[in-house]
């Protein structure tokens, strides 16, 4: 009996000690359900819990509010992010906050089959945050730029026959190609989107190892594979340099 009590107490004490040493970390969700930011955040959240962290989940759902919270917090915090937001949100990737480059994807230029013979006055759908000067440089001055709210609205627009071309992300462009209504090609001039993880009040090197392991999980691999997302894994330094280089492409002049 005595032995049993001592054993139970030991187990209890070990459990308490373990619980006390659990590291606390906040993860901010900055995307809406159904979007990539949200999906990735959920997978990191589950992964961090599995890795033994005491995870505080802040479901903000809007990038600008999330960035504000990220900048103001004094707690160890991580957040998924991407280089196309840095100028708008005034939050750049630095050695202090950069944790990992998760994947990269180019912007695609798609054109409908029926407009292939058209040589001038092409209508081009683009996202509302795109640099129109850059689009004019790439596609010529003799085009009509048509703004859309987001990538899926653009896809609907081109499928509905509104425009002859669209500049869209990889996911929507692949979808468009599946439709058989037109073709797409990745642009080597337009900026490349890089999805990252950033952190604050945290040892970025230590958390990088944890985050990297989470992305090696089958769920994450399936997520990347099903969306044909390219993952350029290398050293932290190289990933940071690449991200910083590519974020310059989103500077609207």
């Amino acid at each position: 009996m005595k032995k049993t009590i001592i054993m139970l107490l030991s187990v209890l004490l070990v459990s308490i000690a373990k619980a006390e040493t659990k590291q606390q970390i906040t993860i901010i969700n900055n995307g809406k359900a159904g979007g990539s930011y949200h999906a990735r955040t959920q997978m990191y959240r589950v992964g961090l819990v599995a890795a033994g962290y005491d995870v505080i989940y802040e479901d903000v759902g809007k990038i600008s509010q999330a960035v504000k919270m990220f900048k103001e917090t004094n707690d160890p915090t991580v957040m998924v992010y991407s280089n196309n937001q840095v100028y708008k949100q005034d939050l750049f990737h630095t050695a202090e906050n950069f944790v990992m480059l998760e994947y990269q994807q180019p912007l695609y230029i798609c054109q409908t089959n029926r407009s292939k013979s058209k040589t001038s006055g092409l209508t081009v759908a683009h996202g509302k945050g795109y640099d129109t000067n850059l689009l004019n440089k790439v596609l010529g001055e003799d085009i009509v730029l048509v703004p859309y709210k987001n990538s899926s609205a653009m896809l609907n627009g081109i499928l509905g026959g509104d425009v002859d071309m669209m500049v869209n992300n990889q996911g929507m462009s692949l979808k468009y190609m599946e439709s058989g209504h037109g073709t797409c090609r990745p642009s080597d001039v337009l900026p490349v989107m890089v999805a990252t993880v950033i952190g604050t009040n945290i040892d970025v090197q230590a958390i990088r190892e944890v985050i990297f392991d989470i992305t090696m999980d089958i769920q994450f691999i399936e997520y990347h594979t099903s969306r044909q997302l390219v993952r350029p894994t290398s050293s932290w330094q190289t990933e940071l340099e690449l991200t910083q280089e590519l974020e310059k492409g989103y500077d609207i002049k």
Partner: protein
Amino acid sequence: MEELIAVSLGLLAGTVTGIVPGAGVTVAMVIATPMLMGFDVTQLLLFYMALASMVQFTGTIPAVFLGVPGETNSLPAVIEGTKFNRRMMSQLAVGVSAVGSVLGSVIAVALTFLLLSFLVDHVSVFFSNNTKFYLYIFVMGFCVLVYNRGKVLINSVLCLIGFALSLPGESDISSDLRYTMGMEDLEFGIPLMPVLIGFLIVPTLYKIYNDHQRVKQFKGNDVAFKKVLVYFMRCLPSSIRGSVIGYLCGFVPGVNTILATNTSYSVEKRLNRNSPGRQLVASETANNSGQFASMLPLLLIGIPITGSEVILYSLLVDAGWSPFQFDNVANNADMIFRDIVPWFVLANLVGLLVAWPFAKQILRMFTASKKYVIISLAIFMIGLNTYLGIQDYRTVLYTICLIVFGCVGLLIRKHEPVPLIFMFILGNDIEAVFLRQMLI
């Protein structure tokens, strides 16, 4: 068995979602996401279908009895349902709405069956800016000419107020901020909930409360199902019209059921000005018909066109679905009629059966303590507004908006607020559609 579980859970979630004011299909999908992550493709589709269908039934109950819209597409049910409520015929209103909803769903299925090959070839017509442009012109015209007994000036002012309220923050065509007056909270625009509460719920509660003062012994009449059917038969042409209008509007991305309900309501208001029953039936029928139609672009060609469908789509992809197989549309169509439609019909029948007793229960509760229900509801709406404000990190703005819009709502309580709310919800999209129409 697994299909039955998915449908049952969807029906349960739909029942709760419809009855809780302010909740909607999107919110329900977000809440249910952890559970849904374990579902396979068919279960996900069935859950969503059952949820979305059931909400259309139960959403009518708070709209008619309490004057509180379950979702933004319940506005006509609130306005016309209140008229039934005043005549102690709330149960009749819920009954005809439920029967109309079933008919709307059946007509939607029949239309899909008849038009399937045409739909597969031409569904993207509904995605075009041109289609949206003319639909908006049509509905805006109705808003100005039909509501408030056709008082064009009043309706125009209401439309302008609604549009003005939709302006602050980012527009749909530019990431530049506008009319925020330096307020950070306004960068995300004026929130929807205070607008709905202020312009719609506050005046409605005020009217119901005043009715209470007049009719001390308020009693709802228990209406036999036969009587409901007889009444419904009188509204049959309106219901069929609503089904067809709702079905077509259901394909319009982003605004499908709102557009379906309001267009059908506006048309019926024009055709049968003094028949709240026909207006109610037409809008509620359009709701269900539009709901089914809105799922077709996703099911046929893998294009989600509503917020809740975007969530569903993401879950479907994670569950291994490859929906955007345009070359395999025939298989998708076969799947709709083999796996979805039978359950859809069942869900609608359950909806009818559930809405009926629930309506009675709520009626009993309401008639027993109307004053307390109104007060509880007012407190609940304030609490809900504050909760959503906290969730949105904009509590102060939500509170200020509620106070301001509540006061204005009371001042203009004699006018129907539909044009204002319609323009507020769709103002940004209308602006973008009109601009694109000029560019294209």
